[in-house]
């Protein structure tokens, strides 16, 4: 055998090995849902429990026989908070794993790419933590969200504050320097100005690790109320350093999937337990409702500590309930296009986990959301509701000039 042909045979064998190795697995008789989230970035303690909530729900569904006898399989990918990796995973999930939908997603920066792919491949994508303008009316096709749209949260903040802190005053809105943050504070400003407040805005870089100067800047605006729209951990950082900067008044945090334990840790480190408020579109796990008891019982059954259940699990659970309802409506077989038709006009009651049903209709892929304020109770170390649910339509009330 000459050198040439020997190498050629090797090359051909190699190519054959590759081709068989890379071949796609055959589809089974299960619903396959794609789940993309961040499992290793700085926000892992936010996104991981959301995934656990989502998985718990479907573990229970599968154990009870699945949806009309068909099991639900969740294929999870870690995007490391990186938009390119998120997009690559979305492509892979759609083309190789043949999932019929994408769920959760991580930070808002990963969303535009995924929504774009989703539309292109006719597979619905439903974000559950972050939310961006693409799901608000007029929504993009195939783009849905049960998450926390910063601009809607900004508008509802004014409504909620008016109930709790009647009268006029000075407020400071704190957020990150990003499109979502910018919109959040612009809408917060509009809704508070409408109610007679004067408004200051403080932006900071999401990469910031030094909170000291920032806390002093916030305290230096001499506010009577501070509202933040920040990812978890940055919220705690800002709280601690604003307190250290000398501000002891009320602070109201937009609860973007911030788990209660983390927030309490921040409160303890800040040393001021009075005047800590958080407003959330999901029921905090410190409340007692039948649905929360159900989540905790399921957690216990599958070997998880029920006391570790937090609002993040609630978020995952709610989106799993939405997924189940959509799959049921879709029937079998349920390719992405059919599931999209099911999601396009759906309303799922979440009991007391949210203030009202999750509704998608026509070009509104966000639906009305309901929000509630919790106050930290220093004695019992728990968050207790201080308002009722307040509704916020997905059509924005205030127009912000570009």
């Amino acid at each position, binding site marked *: 055998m000459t050198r040439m042909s020997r190498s050629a045979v090797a090359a051909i064998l190699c190519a054959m090995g590759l081709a068989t190795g890379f071949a796609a697995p055959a589809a089974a008789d299960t619903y396959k849902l794609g789940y993309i989230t961040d*499992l290793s970035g700085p926000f*892992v303690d936010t996104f991981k429990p959301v995934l656990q909530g989502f998985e718990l729900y479907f573990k229970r569904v599968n154990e009870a026989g699945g949806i009309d006898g068909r099991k639900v399989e969740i294929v999870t990918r*870690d995007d490391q908070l990186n938009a390119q990796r998120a997009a690559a995973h979305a*492509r*892979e999930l759609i083309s190789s794993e043949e999932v019929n939908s994408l769920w959760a997603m991580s930070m808002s920066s990963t969303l535009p790419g995924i929504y774009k792919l989703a539309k292109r491949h006719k597979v619905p994508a439903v974000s559950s933590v972050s939310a961006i303008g693409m799901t608000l009316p007029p929504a993009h096709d195939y783009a849905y969200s049960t998450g926390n749209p910063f601009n809607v949260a900004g508008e509802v903040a004014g409504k909620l504050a008016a109930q709790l802190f009647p009268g006029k005053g000075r407020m400071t809105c704190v957020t990150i320097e990003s*499109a979502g943050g910018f919109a959040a504070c612009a809408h917060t400003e509009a809704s508070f100005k409408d109610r007679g407040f004067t408004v200051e805005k403080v932006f900071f870089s999401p990469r910031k690790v030094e909170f000291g100067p920032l806390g002093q800047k916030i305290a230096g605006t001499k506010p009577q109320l501070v509202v933040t729209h920040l990812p978890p951990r940055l919220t705690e950082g800002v709280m601690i350093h604003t307190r250290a900067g000398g501000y002891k008044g009320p602070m109201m945090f937009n609860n973007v999937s911030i788990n209660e334990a983390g927030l309490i840790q921040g409160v303890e480190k800040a040393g001021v337990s009075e005047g800590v408020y958080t407003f959330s579109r999901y029921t905090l796990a410190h409340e007692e409702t039948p649905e929360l008891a159900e989540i905790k019982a399921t957690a216990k059954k599958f070997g998880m500590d029920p006391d570790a259940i937090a609002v993040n699990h609630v978020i995952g659970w709610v989106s799993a309930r939405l997924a189940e309802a959509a799959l049921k409506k879709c029937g079998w077989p349920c390719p992405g296009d059919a599931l999209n038709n099911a999601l396009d006009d759906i309303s799922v009651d979440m009991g007391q986990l949210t203030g009202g049903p999750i509704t998608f209709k026509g070009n509104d892929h966000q639906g009305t959301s309901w929000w509630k304020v919790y106050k930290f109770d220093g004695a019992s170390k728990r968050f207790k509701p201080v308002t009722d649910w307040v509704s916020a339509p997905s059509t924005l009330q205030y127009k912000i000039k570009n």
Partner: protein
Amino acid sequence: MSAGRPDPAGRPPTLPTRITHRFELFRGREWAWLGMGAVAALAWPLLVTQHWLHITNLSLIAVMGAVGLNLLTGNARLVSLGQAAFLAIGGFSAGAMAHHFAAPFWLSLIVAMLLGGLFGLIVAIPSLRLKALYVAITTLALHFGVTAAFAVYLARVIRSEGILIDPPHFGFFELYDAAPWYYFLLVIAALVVIGALNLQRSHLGRRWVAVADHEVASAALGISIYRAKVSVFVITSMLVSFAGCLGAYYEGVVTEGFYDLHLAIAYLAMIIVGGLGSVLGSILGAFLITLMPYGLDFLLKIGGIKISAGSISGMHSVLYGLLIVGFMLFEPLGLAEIWRRVRDYFTLWPFKYRPLDQLRQR
């Protein structure tokens, strides 16, 4: 400059001579290999799934970026941590041109190259007065400056988390699916590779190496240090921005978060693992480093090993780190050198060394 101090152990310097006069992959009858390679390259989309084709495309884009970085860091010995910044300049030019002017594909590419060149010039100016060491820090500074500026641009001007870019059109044909992109990128990457090989042999490429080896000696020989450094920065920045622009069109979306320091380090890993100063090395490194995370996931999957998704990305980083350190310490010439040795082993077998009359050909 790089001569530094005497080596205590009295060993010969281990870094490569940074001119490879010949594209080492193909010689003489190895043109047959080239033909086979071409056939395999053309048939590749038929052999693999969409997912792996997508990763191949990402690798091809990485090849262009790595070739650019290798000219700068491998040949001219200017360590750049600003790779992500230049890719971002290309990506954001594509985004901005598409968003504000609905510009066609080719125009975005030209603008990306011009802007990249301009920023290359801006970094080159302070670097002229600095030693190689300082170039690392000025390019790092550029990285933070540029990404912060783009974050502000997205937040204040675009008011979105990212800019969506429509796929390029050629007449009625829309460049969207992975297979057409693959052929398109293959052609462009081949052109870039041939261009870089020629550049290395040109008077410009030789000047870069001369200046990197000894500034004072090169100046004494009449080489303008100023021109050499400025030209290498401008040309490689243009190339990298071009790759960034292509990447943005390929992804169809530009976000700020993608262009992080991790990306710049991944490109450094490519050229170190591939081989500093070698175009072949840039290609091998770009493919290896782009494939690595997906390959690892794939291996774990077929191996049936369950590791929490979080640890996997930690393992990716550890692997990058080990590869960089390992190649730096044990094989500074990179995969290109390993490839040469393996090839020699097979072509010379059963002999260990080349006959004397062939030695001069190397």
